[in-house]
Structures are given as C-alpha cells and as structure tokens.
C-alpha cells in the first residue's frame, strides 16, 4: 500500500514536471481558438507554431502570432466573452483578382459551415458588403426572434480572390431563455426613451433608431441579457446619437464594461 502511494506520487510529479516543461516550451493557444483555426484551415493542431504577440495595453484578451507553413495569423482570444478573432497577416493586403460578391458569398458560406458546428436556421446573414480596403465582409448573427440576438456572431472577411483574411467568432455557450427575460420590449423602450430624453436635454426630441435584445452581451461584466437601444437626437438630426443599455433582467441602466464613466459610450 505504502509502495503504491509512492508510485502514484512519483507519476503525478512526473506528469506535473512534463506539464511545466510543455508550458515553458511555447505559449499554448486556447482550445477555443485552436479549434476555430484548425477548422478554418483544415489542419491538425500540431501543424500550428505559436509565438506570443505583445500584450495589448487596453484589454484582457490573449494574443498570439501563429504560423502554419508560409501563412501567419494574428489570433485574439478572450476567455471571458468567448470571442476569438483570426487575422491572416501573410499573403499581401489585397488580391489582384476579384471574384465578385456573389462568388465570395458562396466561399464565405462554405467556410461558415466549416467552422460553425450545428448551423441552424437561427443563423442569419445580416451583412454582406464589399470593403473599401478590398475584399468582402460577411456577418452571421444567431437570432431566436426578430431583433433578438443570442450573442453568437461570426464575421468573415475574404480577400478579393476569395482567400480568407479574417475570421472572428463569438460562441455563446449558454444564454438565458427568451421566455425568462424579465423586461419586455415595451418596458425597455419606455425606460430607454426616458433615459435618452434626460441625456439629450430638455426640449430635444429623441427618436428610436434601433433596438436589439442580446441574450448574452459582451458589453456587460457578466455577459448577461441586455437591451441595446440607439436613439437619434434632435429634430434635424444634427446631434450625435445616444446608445442606451438596459439590463434585461433588472431593468437597470448599465454601461459598457469598458466604459470609464456612466453615460460614456
């Protein structure tokens, strides 16, 4: 019995030593980022060579430079929000060939199905545009009702020739069910209008421009449900818009997690 215990302790120590050696050998890509990159590139994890990127000064995301063959990627992974962004920094900024929006959409859709497991009909393509920098932008958002987003979003930017330039995905593991939301739309709009009017100043007209319920929003500390309301200000519209955020469970006004002061946007 005594010998068995010693044996177990020895094995545990060896395993710990091996883990420490591995950790010191090279930075490890978070599993979420590794999976997304491998799915996008159709490759195995051991094909990826990681180099640490310099730490960002302004947020808590981990950043890595990853090489695979001749390709280089800049990878950002934010564990708290579930967001991963991949930017291919090799291969030149803009391709000379241009396959057009329609063909690019086909390429992007194929890639989207490749990287997102279990795509269902809640995934909606909400934006498809040609970028001034060159290439094409596609954004899919998961929605469980009109203007109700789960918080799951995928952005794909392709080069003009259809090659991947950027893949960004926020995967929401768990959200509040829509039927459990305590603050309904009319209540949120009423609260939002009151806050926007107060911020705009006396006698200034505010008009709702956009409303969105996000069941898991990265704008809050706890990734909770949030009403995102944007108001146009002034009858001539010559004043900046106002973004109002309301906790969808408590009805309290909240501020973005990166906001320095109440009311700042």
């Amino acid at each position, binding site marked *: 019995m005594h010998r068995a215990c010693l044996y177990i302790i020895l094995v545990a120590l060896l395993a710990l030593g091996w883990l420490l050696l591995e950790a010191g050998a090279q930075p490890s890509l978070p599993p979420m980022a590794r999976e997304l990159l491998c799915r996008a590139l159709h490759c195995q994890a051991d094909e990826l060579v990681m180099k640490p990127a310099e730490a960002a000064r302004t947020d808590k995301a981990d950043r890595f430079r990853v090489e695979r063959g001749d390709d280089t990627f800049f990878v950002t992974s934010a564990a708290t*929000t579930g967001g991963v962004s991949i*930017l291919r920094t090799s291969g030149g900024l*803009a391709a000379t060939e241009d396959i057009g929006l329609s063909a690019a959409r086909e390429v992007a859709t194929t890639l989207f199905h490749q990287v997102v497991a279990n795509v269902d009909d809640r995934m909606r393509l909400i934006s498809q545009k040609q970028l001034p920098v060159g290439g094409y*932008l596609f954004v899919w958002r998961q929605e469980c009702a009109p203007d109700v987003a789960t918080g799951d979003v995928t952005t794909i930017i392709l080069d003009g020739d259809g090659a991947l330039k950027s893949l960004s995905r926020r995967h929401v593991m768990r959200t509040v069910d829509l039927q459990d939301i305590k603050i309904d739309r009319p209540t949120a709009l009423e609260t939002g209008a009151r806050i926007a009017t107060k911020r705009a100043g006396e006698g200034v007209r505010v008009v709702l421009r956009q409303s969105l319920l996000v069941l898991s929003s990265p704008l809050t500390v706890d990734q909770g449900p949030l009403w995102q309301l944007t108001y146009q200000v002034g009858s001539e*519209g010559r004043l*900046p818009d106002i973004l109002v955020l309301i906790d969808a469970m408590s009805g309290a006004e909240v501020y973005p997690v990166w906001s320095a002061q109440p009311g700042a946007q």
Partner: protein
Amino acid sequence: MFGFEVLTVPLDYLSLGNCSYLWDGKLPGPPESFDAPKGIYTSKVEIYCPFPMGCEDTDKVPAISNVSVGQFAWDEDGFPDRASVTLVYTCTQALQPCQLQLVKPDLTDGVVLDGTDVLDGTVGQHSVSVHFEVDRQVLGNYHFVITGTQADGSGNRNGSPKPAIPRGAVQVIWAPAVGVLGAGVSNSHFSDTVTLMGATDAATQTHYAAYEGWPTVLATRDAMRQAAVVYIDGHANQFEIAISEHGTEHGHLTGFANIPDVPTYDNYHIPNFPFELDHVLFVFYNGCNSWCAPADGGVAQDLVSSTLAKGAKNCAGFQTTVGMATASFFGWKFFEYALVHGFSIGYADMAAIADVNQEFMLGPDGVETFTADDYGQVLKPARWGE
C-alpha cells in the same frame, strides 16, 4: 561603433604594396552566417610583423569612449523640425579636430545645427548640447557619431597623427501624435486611444497634445502643424468636422477652398493653413453620425482631399453615417492594432471591424466604410523606432 567587436577577419599573409579586403556584410553564426543588422560599422586594422625583432601597429587609436546622448527635447524656437540632445563623451587622448556626425534612421547624413558639430577634443569628459534637424517623415534611430584625429602623432611609428576609432550613441525619436476630441463627443475610449498614440508619454518630450473638454479648431490646426499622427474625433457631416459644440455655426474644420477663415467663429479651412502638412504621416477623421439627410454622413470628401493636397501622406475617414459608440470603439481598436501590434492601416481596419461586430452584434454599423488613401502604410516603425 558602440565599442563592441562583431567580426575579426584574420588575413594570414599580405605582400608588399596595396592590399584590400571587401566585407560582404555577413556576420558568422551559429548556426549560419547572416546579414549584419542595418547600422553603422567601423573598422580597425592591426598589423603584426613576424620578423625576429617583431612589430605591431594599428591604423586607428582608441581615443574616444563613454559616448551617450540624453535629455532629448524639441527645439522650442522652431516647430519640431529641429531638436536637441545632450551629448556626453570622454577623450582619452587630445583630438584635433574632434567632430560630430549625425546619421539619420535611413542612414543618410543628418544636419547638425549652430556649429555644434565641432567638439572639444581636449582630454577628459565633456558634455555638450547638440542641435540638429529632424526629418519628421524619417523617424526612428538618430545616430550621433564622434570622429577625430590625434592632436599629437609624435608617439607613432611615422610621427603622423592617427584617426580615432569612431564611437557613437543612438537617440530614438518618435513621431509626435495628436488626439483631438470634439466638444460633446462622448468617447470613453479617447484617453485609451491617445495613450496608445503615445500622447501621454512624457519621456520623449515630443509635442503631444490631447484636447479634451472644449477644444478649438485653431488649437487643432496648430497641433497639426506639429503632429505626424493625427486623430480627430468630432462631429461630422457632409461639409465639415465640428470641433466645438455641434449644431452651431462655430468651430468648423472644413476642406473648403477659396473661402476665408473666420477666426471670430473659430472656423478654419485646410487649404488656408499657413503651413504644409507634408510632415503628417496619417490623419484619421472619425466623425460621429449626423442625421441631416439620407445622403449625409461620413467624413466630408473635400476634408480628406484637401488634407492630402496639403501634403499629408495618408488620410482616412468613414464614408457613411456611423453610430457614435461603434465609431469610437472602432477608433480605439484601430489604433491598438496599428500602433501596438504594428498592423498596416488595412489590416488594422479589418481587425477593428471584426471587434466591433463581436461587441455590438449590429453588423458593422457603418465602420465597414472606413476608407484610407493608403492601406499599406505602417505607423508603428515611425512611432516606435526600431
């Protein structure tokens, strides 16, 4: 040049007469030889004669040591096309002449001003203020190289003075940056962004300026006279970017030509600027949205074109109306990618667009119309030196 040896080449036997050796610019490994880093190198030839009496000689003598530069400051008398440093050095032998040579980051010759290139070559430690020209489009490592010749060569084999081995030091000069936050523009990322631009870095003492609260167009104009990287977050519509309170006739910066400035209204037009913008590397006009008309929004095209016409190397803005929260978030992330991670303008644009989508879930909300004159431009080397 900094006093450490990088390469020794033994030339086993040289015959009488002129001899030469050509260095291919390679340094030995391990594992393999590689190109020597860009910089300034000097050489010293040592000769040993194998005859019974023996002899040895060198072509240069070690007479300069402990060279350093510090206390960098832009010259207040001229907008920052000139600066000064304190140069400290030691002469272990008397040198006549003793001179300072300035080499710019691109390794071309720089200009030392006010006769401060003539140095005191007496034996001992010296400290001198050196004034020199700064090319604000060639920022990075400025090399200060001291050269000289022995004042007395009587101790040498042929009695002739020998040159001293040159010694030098480097001053890294960053591009001045300016951030201008229009009055009433709600941007909680602005101070973070300005920090990324280096505007709060007092160590380099460059002409940084961050206007918060109630800035004026005149102050913005004067800041642009000094800055290489410019970030203006104001209120934009199809005609101007408003620096002071929006919705009034005051505080407008426009690209209008042939219209006089109106100082009483703090309205200024870029074509009227009493200086060129050819020192400016990059301007980002980040305008909040203005819902004047369906065709409205984005940054006025003549604002961009007049900035470029004045000589700025690159200028950017949005082509459509952008939500204020997303626009400011985009600006923050954009400068992080461009200035911290060294992305080109185009890559920083794409990375920031993706971040906006993850944060706000709205689709790009207008930031996807970010347009620059040169997407390949890289700002980091200019800001951070090498």
